[in-house]
């Protein structure tokens, strides 16, 4: 990937008196997102910064307004933004073993029917792609993954389930993801992993982090 083009403009707006929202003025691309992660890593070292939340091509930072000022942090953010992007992307390669179909993926047949593919082909395409964790939200460790094969895009279920088991792999529209915790949810469930996505006793507490690259690996059924 060509990473040394000049960065797009970074818009910084206050979110109350104790947070700033920094957003890329431009299209949502992986290149922009990598700059967002890099900005977050840089700002984590700035005094007075408390929390950093990458979103989709934006970064929200909270700070202690009794120990630093919004203007100081905005200046620091712009200075970091101007630095050349790293050639090598952040993040680790994480393989997620998945049991597809059956009780672990009760909607796999529906997804196959919707996509006009057979079940093996859905699994093949789902395991073939390399996904990128754009950001984490909704639940601890819930990764918003980019990279789902367009042929697998499937609308959410008309009736959300009241309880989706932890570890379930789902497809909702153009997104695929893993539920770290049992929760109500409307995504089409195609499989399940035995890996723990969230462990409050571990540091870091989640398996996945922004910037990680994810592959799903089919386990024999």
């Amino acid at each position, binding site marked *: 990937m060509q990473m040394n083009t000049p960065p797009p403009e970074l818009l910084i*707006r*206050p*979110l*109350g*008196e*104790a*947070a700033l*929202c920094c*957003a890329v003025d431009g299209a*949502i691309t992986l290149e922009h997102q990598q700059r967002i992660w890099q900005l*977050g890593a840089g700002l984590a070292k700035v005094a007075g910064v*408390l*929390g*950093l*939340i*990458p*979103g*989709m*091509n*934006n*970064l*929200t930072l*909270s700070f202690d*307004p*009794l120990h630093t000022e*919004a203007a100081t942090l905005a200046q620091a953010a712009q200075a970091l933004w101007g630095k050349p992007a790293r050639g090598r992307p952040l993040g680790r390669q994480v393989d997620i073993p998945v049991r597809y179909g059956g009780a672990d993926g009760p909607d796999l047949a529906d997804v196959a029917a919707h996509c006009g593919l057979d079940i093996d082909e859905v699994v093949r395409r789902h395991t073939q792609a390399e996904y990128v964790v754009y*950001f*984490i*939200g*909704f*639940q*601890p*460790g*819930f990764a*918003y993954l980019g990279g789902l094969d367009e042929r697998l895009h499937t609308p959410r279920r008309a009736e959300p389930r009241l309880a989706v088991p932890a570890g379930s792999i789902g497809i909702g529209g153009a997104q695929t993801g893993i539920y770290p*915790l049992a929760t109500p949810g409307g995504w089409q469930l195609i499989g399940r992993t035995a890996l723990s996505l*969230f462990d*409050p*006793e571990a*540091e*870091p*507490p*989640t398996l996945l*982090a*922004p910037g990680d690259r994810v592959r799903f690996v089919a386990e024999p059924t």
Partner: protein
Amino acid sequence: MIEVLRAGPLTTVQDLGREAWRDRGISRCGALDDLALMRANLLVGNPPGAAGLEFTLGPATLRFDADCSIAVTGTDADALLDGQPLRPWWRQRVKAGQTLKLAAPRERMRSYLAVSGGIASAPALGSRSTDLKAGFGGLQGRALRDGDRLPLAATTTALPARRIGLAPPDWDATVRALPGPEHEDFSVAAREAFWDADWRLTPQSNRMGYRFAGPELRRERGGELASHGVLPGVVQVPPSGQPIVLLADAQTTGGYPKIAVVIRADLWKLAQLRLGATLRFRPCSADEAVAALRGRQAELDQLRSALHDR
């Protein structure tokens, strides 16, 4: 140890919440009325952020199996220690074996109990606060139940003997807020309505967020927003046009436009608003918001040194 004889409808262990791992989707959590918890802690000689109990309405009954000092703050709830009235917002010595009965408050919503030394449940990710949604922190990540036992930290310092009380802070149903990033995307009428209306707190409200009912707030400009980080205090407006104020347990990201952000120094007031009551938002500047926070911190520091060794 504290034995929970009657837990009440929603009683949780809370401190001031966690700041780390926000990028991993970890919510802040912590006492909704942080001011009440900090003042209760100072009364019993604790650091302001020690873990205490947050009671939602009540009633609750607790038995202490060690000598300690306690303070109940947040509301005007009647409390009895072995049948003797105990004044809210006052420090009280407790002997091992005594039972505290906390009634539901006549006014307000959430009472807090601080115990000298603090509740010593295991910390998780830098805080003892209960995360009800993700099921960790506090006592097994859940609200207290009848029969639970809560560990207390052993206090090394002598318990303060003197009875000392505080005047409750002035509460009213008005919070100051700054315009949010999408404030100007709303119609002029919607903006005026937001700042002028009495917003009614609906039953679809919890520690994650308060949903209010009032005039419909229509957004005129801007398309769908990319998912972005949110914080307690953010006032977001979903397509229904009815605002939601995010609170301590809110998830870390959202996608709705943000018409305003309640200032940090006034967030505690939301904790004490009753369902069905109305709230007003008053616009203020960022300078006023920081000054209010600084003023509050100065008062707490002053209180801490005034209470030191007393």
